[in-house]
């Protein structure tokens, strides 16, 4: 009898022990610990993060470890946020990558940093203003992520970005564009302030606007820390679905980024397309947002994107067929010189 009681007590104890263990088990035992958040640890974490995930060291011919060693000497564990910010931005600057952005989330006096932002962290849009476009195309309509209209048989299509998880919105927008612009003799496609979005959506837009099948891009992504740790090359093709063949003027600028640039690559494979304006941002790859141990955020390019001939434009940008200088003062006066060139080109072709 005594033995039975002991046996029952033991089993209850096991049950209670399990319950107690489950509900109060130390989080660190199961989940692990966060790394130290001091300046040198954060800097080392960033170096390791880029070593694992950044896809463009070889393309940009940057010796990442040497750059890290050079900047690391300026830091101690007690260095200020400002010192850490300066060291990180000095480390990242040689990568010349507009897809790298540093967000000092908990340091109010430190601005967001990227090579295409000013000292206050602002991205300056001095190359495009939709209000000015309306001086030339007064009957502009907007639907989803596109603005479109026509004047004197010249169609105008402004693609703001390539967002979304499905092709349905893109299909709806482009159906409306085709309904509206089917009679035009030439089309302006404007991606000058297009910060990007999803490459497959950009590919869908290109398919609907193109008339010739072509391979326009090869991409691969980082799969490990080693320099050759990449996935296999993936081929991107334009599969034309345009209903009409017409001359197209493609407008680009440094505000044409990411998927805006992969769209540009796709359209530049077409013999009826001529591009005008400025060189694009040179940040084609997908980028991802990561966190640093001190709470800051950093985005970085994880891919290696090339055109159909394996030429890289990362950090360089895609030059237009016809570069046109413009300035903010002209734009403020209500004139869009790039658009005027495009209209003139289409009127004579």
């Amino acid at each position, binding site marked *: 009898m005594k033995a039975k009681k002991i046996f029952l007590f033991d*089993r209850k104890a096991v*049950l209670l022990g*399990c*319950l107690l263990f*489950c*509900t109060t*088990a130390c*989080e660190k035992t*199961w*989940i*692990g610990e*966060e*790394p130290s958040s001091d300046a040198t640890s954060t800097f080392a*974490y960033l170096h390791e993060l880029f070593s694992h*995930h950044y*896809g463009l060291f070889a393309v940009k011919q940057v010796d990442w470890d040497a750059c890290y060693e050079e900047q690391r000497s300026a830091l101690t564990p007690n260095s200020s946020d400002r010192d850490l910010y300066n060291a990180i931005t000095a480390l990242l600057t040689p990568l010349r990558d507009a897809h790298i952005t540093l*967000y000092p*989330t*908990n340091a109010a006096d430190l601005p*967001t940093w990227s090579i295409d932002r*000013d000292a*206050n*962290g*602002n*991205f*300056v*849009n*001095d190359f*495009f*203003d939709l209000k000015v476009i309306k001086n030339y195309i007064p009957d502009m309509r907007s639907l989803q992520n596109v603005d479109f209209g026509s004047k004197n048989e010249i169609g105008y299509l402004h693609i703001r970005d390539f967002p979304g*998880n*499905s*092709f349905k919105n893109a299909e709806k927008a482009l159906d409306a564009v085709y309904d509206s612009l089917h009679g035009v003799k030439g089309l302006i496609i404007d991606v000058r302030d297009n910060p990007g979005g*999803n*490459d*497959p959506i950009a*590919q869908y837009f290109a398919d609907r606007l193109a008339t010739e099948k072509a391979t326009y891009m090869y991409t691969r*992504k*980082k*799969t*490990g820390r080693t320099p050759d740790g990449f*996935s296999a090359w*993936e*081929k*991107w*093709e334009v599969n034309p679905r345009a209903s009409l063949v017409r001359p197209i003027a493609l407008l680009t600028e440094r505000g044409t980024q990411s998927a805006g640039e992969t769209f540009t690559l796709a359209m530049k494979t077409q013999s009826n397309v001529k591009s005008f304006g400025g060189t694009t941002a040179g940040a084609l790859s*997908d980028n*991802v*947002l*990561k*966190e*640093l*141990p001190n*709470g800051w*955020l950093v985005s970085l390019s*994880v*891919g290696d994107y090339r055109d159909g001939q394996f030429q890289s434009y990362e950090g360089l940008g895609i030059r237009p067929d016809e570069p046109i200088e413009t300035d*903010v003062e002209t*734009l*403020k006066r209500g004139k869009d010189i790039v658009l005027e060139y495009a209209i003139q080109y289409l009127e004579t072709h």
Partner: protein
Amino acid sequence: MKTKPLYWIYYLLGWLCWHPTPVGAAEQGNSPAYQRQLFFGIALGELTMLDQGKSPFIYFGRALWGMHLGYERHTGQSAFGIAAGGSYGSFGAKYHPDRTIRLSDIDVDGQVSNSVIPLDAQMASARIDGYYLRNFKGLSSTRWTFQVGGSLMDEIYYPVDNFIAANPTNIANLDIQGRIGYRVAPCHQLSLDIHSALLAAITREPYDGTFSEPGKTLISSFFSKGTGLYSLPDYQKIELAVHYGFQPVGHLAYGIGGDWTFLHAARPQPYRTLNKRYHLSVGYLF
């Protein structure tokens, strides 16, 4: 620590059964009668997560409120159950709360537009699971029942806002499951369920963190590129669930309980979660 007081409130508010025990049947001895039960419950949970491929931070679902609906069938020899439920609550870096991200642009006229976006977000999750258990006849007695079998579970976590260092994750598990039941008193039954994963299909962010493939939407790429099959030693999942069931009279049964799940996927980079849920339920016995 900011969230510590809430932790104990969970104990007071929670404790309900994910699998309410058919105490009316258990009362009858070591050979329970055929019985069916439909049950509904509410739950409060917390999710702790570390995704080293995405962030060095421990992320925390502070108060994930949920509800579930299920069906159970017991015979003298076996038990079968199926349940579905969901939860929703706040989610953010556990030790770095209240962070914000500032985005600013300056337009052609020099006007600066600033937007401040909170980094804490919301987390929704949905879960469906089913199990089948057979009695260990030799071990069962009037007070104790021992059962073993398998279960299938699918659970999806979906962070609702952007700028959060987590992406949607879907986890489908094939588990081996054991259950120990103990009749505390007439109409009162305690049970302990133990699960361990044999095989899992996990869909989450791949190593490169992106979902763009030619001709594919984000969602189709998420499933095709982000799905991997896992088993030991790359994957471990242990789930323990404790339930207390009470059937005072008639067709109604009540339950309280809690479950605790630890999951570790070693690739592409370590991903660990610790999930605690506390439940209250009411069941209708047919």
